[in-house]
């Protein structure tokens, strides 16, 4: 017997190539249309066929957008689909599926098992390709979702498919709905999350899309990249929108080419971005240093995955923070953002273009597989032209690209706009861009570049404090751990805990010390082994955290494991 009320967690598990991702998308859309908040996290093996992939979908009446250990409904899609989940399948889990896919150990009592001959139903309709539609119908029936609406969704989704195939899909859906209604009648699952009208109006988006759309909103019109998990979706999305928004999207021969292209595009008046992961970013570091030397704007998206080297290509980690801060030889200013939720993903990517242009510095967006591959909803997006305009100057005879200014920022000309010339060199250069070995000129140019660190101050994004102002315990985190920590604080029942979350991780905001000194107990939460952000804070403030909560097995933190940790806070 299951009494869910506000929040249902469904896990679908099967082999790569079975279309679990497609089903995930169909269900997310269906639940959102029905007025539920949705969130899904996909985890998959680095292979095209076989293995075991899964997706966790949370359906709720209030926003619930982080990874849970708890599984309320488990649907296996093949033999061996349950093995990796044994520890998370409990007596409270309802197992729904084909008898052939349910492991024997769950049949002996103590588990709620609902056997439905899914494969047989699909076969009767025309083959196992219809299995996903049967399962979709099953959830529509279980939740009592309007059948016509769901049919409409299928007809729209498969509009380019032959008419007889669509009809078979509808038939599969109907059979599923019947089975779902039967489960609802049986009383095995009661009080499912109710609809709330605000969820229907929200946008369904994943992390990768927030980066692409934020980039477009920032005026991005040039993307050069080499495919690398988990960042490839950002490149694919840009390609998808390239015709609509006049974006040059080029798959470069390697990451070295990609970053040099992006820098040169800015030089010639483009607004360019690269998207990569740790290994590709490693290849880009000489280019990053070039951007520092020639004071080029540049936006780099690094979707982190566990390293070192190839590491775990499809898994998640926050292991490249210090690498991003120190990547590239020589000294030059940079900005690093790490979005914690979808709204920040969009806003910070958009802002990255503006800041890169305004201060002529590289801006790095640090995300990770958990952020990029998760789907959720956002109320809406702020779009205007304020962050997409070029900050360039018309050149004139005698124009000097590296004119020394108080702020350190020189008016940026581009070749072909005005009758001056724009000269830049990776060698140390004078104000005109010509090579120099004059020590005095060197010092003037270094000082000019580094002065931008001070000039950038007012645009620095302060950390966000979530929770009571009079907190006793303070958790510090950055990037994708935001939602999970917030939900875990609630689950811990502790009202004396606040979270200080950083979406700009570098330069470290000056308020940091003030917050930390106020707390009786401090903890830092990071998806890495060495607590890299903790190290950065110690380096800048000397502050040492009382507790470090670290995870580096390739999976994100679950709400439950964080809540357990938070309960123990002194």
């Amino acid at each position, binding site marked *: 017997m299951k009494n869910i009320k506000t929040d249902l967690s469904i896990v679908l598990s099967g082999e790569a190539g079975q279309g679990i991702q497609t089903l995930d998308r169909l269900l997310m859309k269906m639940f959102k249309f029905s007025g539920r908040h949705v969130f899904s996290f996909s985890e998959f093996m680095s292979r095209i066929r076989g293995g075991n992939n899964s997706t966790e979908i949370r359906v709720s009446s209030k926003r619930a957008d982080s990874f849970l250990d708890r599984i309320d409904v488990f649907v296996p899609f093949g033999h061996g689909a349950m093995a990796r989940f044994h520890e998370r399948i409990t007596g409270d889990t309802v197992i729904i599926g084909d008898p052939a896919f349910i492991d024997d150990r769950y049949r002996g009592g103590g588990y709620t098992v609902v056997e439905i001959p899914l494969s047989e139903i699909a076969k009767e309709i025309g083959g196992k390709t219809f299995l996903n539609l049967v399962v979709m119908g099953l959830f529509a029936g279980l939740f009592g979702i309007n059948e016509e609406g769901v049919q409409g969704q299928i007809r729209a989704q498969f509009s380019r498919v032959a008419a007889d195939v669509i009809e078979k899909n509808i038939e599969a859906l109907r059979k599923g709905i019947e089975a779902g209604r039967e489960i609802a009648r049986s009383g095995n699952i009661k009080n499912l999350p109710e609809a709330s009208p605000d969820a229907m109006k929200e*946008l369904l988006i994943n992390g990768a899309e927030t980066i692409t759309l934020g980039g477009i909103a920032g005026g991005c019109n040039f993307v050069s990249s080499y495919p690398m998990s988990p960042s490839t979706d950002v490149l694919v999305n840009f390609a998808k929108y390239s015709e609509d928004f006049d974006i040059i999207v080029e798959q470069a021969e390697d990451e070295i*080419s990609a970053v040099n292209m992006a*820098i040169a*595009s800015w030089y*010639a*008046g483009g607004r360019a971005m690269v998207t990569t992961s740790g290994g590709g970013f490693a290849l880009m570091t000489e*280019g990053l240093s070039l951007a520092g030397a020639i004071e080029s704007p540049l936006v780099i998206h690094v979707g982190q995955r566990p390293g070192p080297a190839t590491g775990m290509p499809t898994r998640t980690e926050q292991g490249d923070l210090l690498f991003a801060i120190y990547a590239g030889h020589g000294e030059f200013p940079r900005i690093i953002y790490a979005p914690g939720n979808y709204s920040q993903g969009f806003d910070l990517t958009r802002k990255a273009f503006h800041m890169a242009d305004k201060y002529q510095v590289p801006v790095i967006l640090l995300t990770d597989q958990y952020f990029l591959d998760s789907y959720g909803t956002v109320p809406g997006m702020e779009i205007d*032209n304020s962050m997409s305009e070029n900050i360039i100057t018309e050149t004139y005879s005698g124009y000097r690209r590296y004119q020394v200014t108080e702020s350190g920022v020189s008016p940026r000309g581009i*070749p072909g706009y005005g009758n001056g010339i724009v000269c830049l060199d990776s060698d140390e250069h004078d104000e005109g861009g010509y090579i120099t070995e004059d020590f005095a000129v060197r010092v003037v140019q270094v000082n000019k570049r580094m002065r931008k660190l001070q000039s950038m101050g007012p645009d620095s994004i302060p950390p966000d404090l979530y929770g009571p102002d009079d907190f006793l315990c303070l958790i510090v985190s950055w990037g994708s751990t935001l939602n999970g920590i917030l939900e875990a604080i609630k689950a811990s029942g502790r009202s004396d805990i606040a979270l200080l979350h950083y979406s700009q991780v570098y330069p470290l905001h000056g308020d940091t010390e003030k917050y930390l000194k106020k707390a009786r107990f401090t903890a830092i939460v990071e998806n890495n082994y060495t607590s890299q952000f903790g190290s950065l804070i110690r380096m800048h403030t000397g502050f040492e955290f009382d507790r470090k909560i670290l995870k580096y097995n390739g999976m994100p933190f679950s709400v439950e494991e964080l809540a357990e940790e938070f309960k123990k806070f002194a």
Partner: protein
Amino acid sequence: MSSVFDFERPPDMAWCPGCGNYDIIKAVRSALDDLNISRDRIVMVSGIGQAAKTPQYVNASFFNGLHGRSLPAATAIKASNPGLTVVVESGDGCTYGEGGNHFLAALRRNPDITNLVHDNMVYGLTKGQASPTSRKGFKTPVQITGVFLEPFNPVAVAVAMNASFVARAFSGDIEKTKEIIKKAITHRGYSLVDILHPCVSFNRVNNFSWYKSNTYYLDDAYDPSNRSEALKKSVEMEKLPLGVIYTNSNNKTFEENLAPYKKNDAPLYLRKLDAGKLMRIIEANLK
């Protein structure tokens, strides 16, 4: 003769007296003058090395980036503003060694840029090691028993890749080199000019007289559009043919294939985000 690309005050040049680079820069400047290219519409792009300093000595806009990376940079500059004339100048080490992968990619992409490779078969700036085009047996402080690697043949590779324009020149003949450069710049598509030149400090083998006696000009009857003839010419290694070896105007340029320019010619900096359209597409796709 003075050029619009001369400086009021001559720059302090880092080349050795007698270097072939002086002849190449003369040919480049006068080619640009002959073609009436405006100073504010051209960008010189280079990597690192002695040849890569050329843009410093031409009074025009330049992007002097990283070793080996001049071609990605030049490709992106042309793609971002197709109205610019883009000329890449770098050496054999930078273009064929460090930048080898980019050379192959440039042949495939076919951007409308001109690639002048100063090829002296040796590394000059690092003081005399073998380059990808060094001949077998060439001794250096690193290749102490002589180069035993097969020399890279950029001309043959370019013809094999069905490149748009492939030529070889010799710096000792400024007038003929200038004419080849003019053809390369006016050609639509990627143009490679491998310019042989002596290194007076570090290559005592392939010197001025060696080039004189080991090269010859293709005659007027030679048809550069004939690919199989061009392939034959490109693998001649005993006496190196000079002139335009291969042209192929069948392929679209890189820029012509890009989304923005299918609609109009406006460079990227003149385009604006259509915020309303973005809002509409987000609503339509994500609701």
